[in-house]
C-alpha cells in the first residue's frame, strides 16, 4: 500500500532580510502509512517545526519549499500549483499546534470554529455542520457539548481548548494529522488524556499521524516509527522499538541517555555537551561532529548520507554497533 504522506528530498530555504539564505530543513525524506504514527524528535531549532509547516503548507511565501516529491493521498503536491495544493491539503491534512488557547480565535465561539472546519473540509449546510461540530465536541470528551458550542476559548482551560482544537482538526475525517508539540503546554495528566484521545481518533478514522515532539517519553508511548532530526537533517529513523533498544547514531544514543528515569536515581543526568550549530554557520561534514565523542577526521570532511543499518536508517560514518 502506498503511504498516505510521503516526502522525498524535502528542503526549506528562507531568505533573510540581509540577503542571505538559511536552510532550516535540508533534504529530508519521510513516509507515513494510513493509521500509522510517525514521531519526529529533536532539540529546539533542529527543524522539526519547519518540517511540520512545510508538510502542512503553512510557511510564509518567502520560505522556499522544495521537494523531489511530496505526495499526500496519492497526489503529488510538488507538481501541483499553489491553489490546487492548498485544496488537497484542506481536504486531506489537519494540523494541531502547541498553544490551543491562542490558536483559537478569541471572538468566535468554539462551536462556530469547529463548524467552520467541518464546512471547509467536508462542505454541507450550516445546520449540518453545526450538528456535526456538536458531535465532534462530544467525541473529543468535552462535557456538555451544547454548552461548549456556545463557549469562547477564554472560558475554557488549556486542555479543553486542545480538545476543541482536535475536534476542529479531525472534522471531516482527514487522512493525515500533523501534531506539532500538541501536548507540550499541558499538565502531565491532561497530556496523557490528549494522547489517548488522538490514538483513539486515529483508530476510528484510520488517519496517519505525524507527531512532532522533543519528548522521547511520548515517542515511546505513541509512535510506531521515529525520525530523529538534528540541524535540519534526519540523522536516524526506524521503528521505535529498535531505535530505543539499539540506537545507531551517537546523537540518538545521547538523547536516550539524557532521559531521566523514574526507576533509577542518578546524581548526574547524562548530557550531550555543546549546542546545535547556528543555522547560518553549519560546519562542513557531519553537523553533529563538533559534539560527538566518536567523531574522527573524516566526519569533519564528509556529510554522511542516511544508510540502512539493520532495521533502521542512520546517517553516521561511525555508527554504534548493534547492542553496543
Amino acid at each position: 500500500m502506498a503511504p498516505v504522506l510521503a516526502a522525498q528530498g524535502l528542503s526549506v530555504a528562507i531568505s533573510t532580510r540581509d540577503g542571505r539564505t538559511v536552510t532550516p530543513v535540508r533534504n529530508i525524506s519521510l513516509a507515513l502509512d494510513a493509521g500509522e504514527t510517525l514521531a519526529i524528535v529533536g532539540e529546539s531549532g533542529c527543524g522539526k517545526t519547519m518540517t511540520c509547516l512545510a508538510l502542512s503548507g503553512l510557511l510564509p511565501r518567502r520560505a522556499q519549499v522544495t521537494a523531489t516529491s511530496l505526495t499526500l493521498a496519492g497526489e503529488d503536491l510538488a507538481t501541483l500549483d499553489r491553489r490546487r495544493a492548498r485544496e488537497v491539503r484542506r481536504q486531506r491534512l489537519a494540523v494541531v499546534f502547541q498553544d490551543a488557547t491562542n490558536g483559537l480565535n478569541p471572538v468566535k465561539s468554539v462551536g462556530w470554529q469547529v463548524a467552520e472546519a467541518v464546512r471547509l473540509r467536508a462542505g454541507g449546510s450550516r445546520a449540518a455542520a453545526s450538528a456535526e461540530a456538536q458531535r465532534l465536541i462530544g467525541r473529543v470528551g468535552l462535557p456538555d457539548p451544547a454548552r461548549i458550542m456556545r463557549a469562547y476559548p477564554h472560558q475554557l482551560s488549556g486542555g479543553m481548548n486542545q480538545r476543541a482544537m482536535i475536534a476542529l482538526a479531525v472534522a471531516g475525517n482527514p487522512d493525515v494529522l500533523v501534531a506539532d508539540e500538541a501536548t507540550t503546554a499541558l499538565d502531565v495528566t491532561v497530556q496523557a488524556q490528549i494522547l489517548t484521545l488522538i490514538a483513539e481518533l486515529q483508530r476510528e478514522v484510520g488517519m496517519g499521524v505525524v507527531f512532532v515532539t522533543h519528548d522521547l517519553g511520548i515517542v515511546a508511548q505513541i509512535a510506531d516509527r521515529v525520525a530523529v532530526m538534528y540541524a535540519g537533517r534526519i540523522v536516524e529513523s526506524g521503528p521505535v522499538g529498535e531505535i530505543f533498544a539499539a540506537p545507531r547514531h551517537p546523537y540518538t544514543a545521547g538523547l536516550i541517555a539524557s532521559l531521566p528515569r523514574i526507576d533509577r536515581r542518578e546524581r548526574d543526568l547524562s548530557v550531550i555537551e555543546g549546542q546545535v550549530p547556528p543555522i547560518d554557520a553549519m560546519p562542513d561534514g557531519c553537523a553533529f561532529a563538533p559534539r560527538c565523542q566518536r567523531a574522527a577526521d573524516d566526519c569533519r570532511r564528509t556529510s554522511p548520507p542516511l544508510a540502512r543499518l539493520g532495521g533502521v536508517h542512520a546517517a553516521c560514518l561511525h555508527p554504534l554497533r548493534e547492542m553496543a
Partner: protein
Amino acid sequence: MSVRFVIVKLLRAILTIWLVVTFVFFVLRLSGDPVAQLLPDDVDKQTVQFYRELWGLDQPVGVQYLRYIEALLQGDLGISFRNNLDAFQLVMERVPKTALLGGTALLFALGFGIPLGIYAALHRDTAIDRAIMSVAVFGFSLPNFFLGIMLILIFSLQLRWLPSSGSGTWWHLLMPAVTLGTGFGAQIARYARSAMIDVTNRAYMRTAEAKGAGQTRKLYVHALPNAAIPIVTITGMKIGELLGWAVVTETVFAWPGIGRLLTSAVAMRDLAVVQCIMLILAVTMVSANFIVDLAYGWLDPRVRAQRQGER
C-alpha cells in the same frame, strides 16, 4: 449586559458632567466681568448695576453657582447675555450644523483610514505600505487650520471650484469635512495598520490558514473582528479631539456651528451660552464613550463575560 453595568456607567456619566459644568462655571467667573465686556465703556453706573442684578452677577459666586445648578436641574440653561434669547435654543439651532460637519468628517476619516491602514498592514514593508504611511504621517502632522487655509487657497481662490465659507450647499461641506477629517483619518490609518499587523501574527490566524480558509475569509471573518477592537477604542478616545478641532475648522470656513458660536460667546463673555455649549460637548463625549463601551461588549466576548460577572 447587567443592570449593574448600566447603573455604574450612568453614575460615572453624571459625575463627569457635573465636574465639567462646575469647572466651566468657576473658570468663567474668574475670567473677567461680562458686563464690562458687553456694555459700551461710557454707560453709567446704574445701568451697569441693573445688568449685574439682572444676570445675578451681584451675588457671591457660591450663591450664583447654587442658583445655576438649581436652574440646570430644572432644565433651564439661562438666557444669552447678548440677545436675551434662550441659551439652549440658541445652541441647539447650531447643533445640526456641527453634527453634520463632525459626522461627515468622521465618516471620511474612518472610510479612508481603516481600509488604507489594513491595506498597508497586508502589504507590510512594501513600497505601497511606506507610501500610505508617509501620507498618514503628513496628514497627521499638518495643522488643521493650515490645511484649511491651503484648501481655500487652492480650491476657492485659484481654481474657483469650491466656496470658501458658509454652509448653504453640499459643496460648502466638502472642504471643512476634509480639513477636519484628515488628521483623524491619518491617525486611524496608523492604528488600523498596527492592529491588523498584530492580529495577522496571532496563532489563530495560522489555525484559520490550516483549516484552509481563503484569503477573503481569513481577512473578513477571522482578522477584522479582532482588529476592530483596538480601532473602536481609539476612535472613541479621539472623538473628543475631533470636537475640539471642529471649533478651529468652523472658524476657518465660517461654518455656522456651535464651534463658531463658542468662540464668539467666549470673546463676549456670554456666560450662559458658553456653559450651555460646554454642557452639550460633555454630554456628547460621555455618550460617545458609552457607545464605544457597548460596541466593546458586542465585539469582544471576553469583555461581555466580565460584564455578566462570570469568569
